[in-house]
């Protein structure tokens, strides 16, 4: 009896230790990035954890570094890159919502022959190697004048945001019993009123969570703005590389830029905890 109790307790402690060990592994790099961002350039090459924190790096990337010599990378471009990321991510999510919400509804409610094939085709966008579409587009976009434009990137990003929204929303629509819509029909309401007054309110939290998740994925994308964009639409992800490949390695600036560039995602992650699993698994797991 006593051994059982001790084993249980020992087991619990070991479990807790293992858990904490993993989370140290998981969160340390992020923690270290924040630490880096607060280090002044002189203290950069020391590995001390005790140092004088400074906001100089943030200041430099946001407002430009008055002490920097000419030719230093990304003087005031960071705010611009940040805005580009905002515009491109919001734009692609909005387009995906307008296109995807009706499509998700059709896939959830209507039955037609090619339904599952169509649904799988949308899913295959997410799993397809991006270059198979980007390489031809790099030629096409230049011809159409879409190279290095917001529209061009927003359009390709549908490869990422549209499958997510369609599949996740489809699963939320399927959760609503069709009889509720039928009751509203019998009660005298046409389809579009039913959609806005009954259906949307019922899926609204899932819809919001899926949109935020899609926003994060659009924001984190790298290949599309790298190849199909240049200076006009450079996003924070592409510019992050710029800090390291320049002649002077401003690691601390890069860290500060990374912290700011990662901030929206963390907020999203904390706010959609409940919907995370369904969103990440494209509706396959209801969690």
């Amino acid at each position: 009896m006593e051994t059982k109790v001790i084993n249980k307790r020992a087991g619990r402690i070991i479990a807790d230790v293992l858990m904490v060990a993993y989370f140290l592994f998981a969160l340390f790099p992020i923690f270290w990035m924040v630490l880096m961002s607060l280090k002044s350039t002189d203290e950069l090459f020391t590995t001390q954890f005790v140092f004088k924190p400074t906001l100089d790096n943030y200041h430099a990337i946001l407002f430009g570094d008055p002490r920097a010599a000419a030719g230093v990378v990304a003087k005031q471009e960071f705010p611009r890159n940040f805005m580009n990321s905002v515009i491109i991510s919001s734009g692609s999510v909005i387009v995906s919502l307008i296109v995807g919400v009706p499509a998700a509804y059709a896939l959830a409610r209507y039955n037609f022959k090619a339904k599952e094939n169509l649904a799988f085709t949308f899913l295959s966008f997410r799993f397809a190697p991006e270059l198979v579409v980007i390489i031809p587009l790099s030629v096409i976009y230049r011809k159409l004048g879409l190279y290095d434009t917001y529209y061009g990137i927003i359009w390709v990003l549908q490869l990422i945001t549209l499958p997510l929204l369609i599949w996740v929303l489809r699963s939320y629509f399927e959760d609503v019993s069709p009889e509720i819509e039928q009751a509203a029909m019998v009660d005298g309401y046409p389809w579009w009123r039913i959609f806005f007054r009954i259906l949307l309110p019922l899926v609204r939290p899932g819809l919001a969570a899926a949109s935020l998740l899609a926003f994060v994925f659009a924001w984190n994308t790298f290949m599309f703005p790298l190849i199909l964009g240049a200076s006009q639409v450079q996003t924070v992800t592409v510019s992050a590389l710029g800090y390291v490949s320049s002649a002077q390695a401003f690691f601390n600036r890069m860290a500060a830029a990374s912290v700011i560039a990662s901030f929206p995602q963390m907020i999203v992650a904390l706010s959609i905890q409940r919907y995370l699993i369904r969103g990440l698994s494209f509706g396959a797991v209801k969690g």
Partner: protein
Amino acid sequence: MTGDLASVHASSRDLPQARTQLPFLVRARPYLILLPALLILVGILIPFGMGVYYSLTTYALNRPGSLDNFVGLRNYDRMIHSSGFINSTTITLKYALSATIVELLLGLGIAILLNRDTLLAKILQTTLIFPMMVAPVIGTLIWKLMMQPSVGILNPILNTVGLPSLQWASVPETALFSVVLVDVWMFTPFAALILLAGLRSFPREPFEAARVDGASLWFTFRNLTLPMLTPYIIIVVLFRFMDSLKQFDIIFAMTEGGPGNTLMTYQLTAYRTSIQYLRLAQGLPYAVMLFFAIYITSQYLVKFWGKAQRRAAGYSS
């Protein structure tokens, strides 16, 4: 009775043949609301189709007129017989398999640890997803920085516990390990979350019955836990394996495919050949072949998932 039906028809007999179908616009509604998504679908298929076409020519951006030269499957043939092909295939598969397997096993362990009711578990679960939320490029850069000989923290940590310093991604021996490490750091939370959802979805009755019947731990695991967990495992494998086969951001940010050709996976090769060297028709076959491999594999995995789901559902009824 028949008399009544006649009176019912009386009013409609005056009308033209009674309409038995809803108006056309009403019947067409399902297809109309799908239209925008279909347009985007076509809009994606067009460049894809063009890409496949390019791969059948000798298209190179620095050689005018090369697009008109149709050579069929010659590029594919050349690709398969090229010196880098085996290396590329090997490294693509090694990366995908090692990342997926480690993430699956580690994720399962974490899911089991988190599947408890303690306060610590609940708090930690909220932060679980953070590594996955950071942009892959940025996450890789952080690790690259940590691996850096001058400012990095990893080697000092290794040294404090008595282990020698590593050269991480700068040398071929540890390059794969370094990028897989980043992948594992970034995507194990995904596996853990999905498997945790799976563990939480188990009905208690079969396990209680097994315990009452005196089943061994292994028996319970093999005949109850595993079948009920299989659909979730398949989801993890589907997403992670397919994603890591085409992983670009992590490898590119770390070494751009190096050192040398060590990490030149299919997509990296396609990028270098088509975008950097501008030889589109030479690089596209890698991307196209990868596409078909992924497409076919994912179809099978989705089918398996359906079967596994139905089988698992049998346990909860």
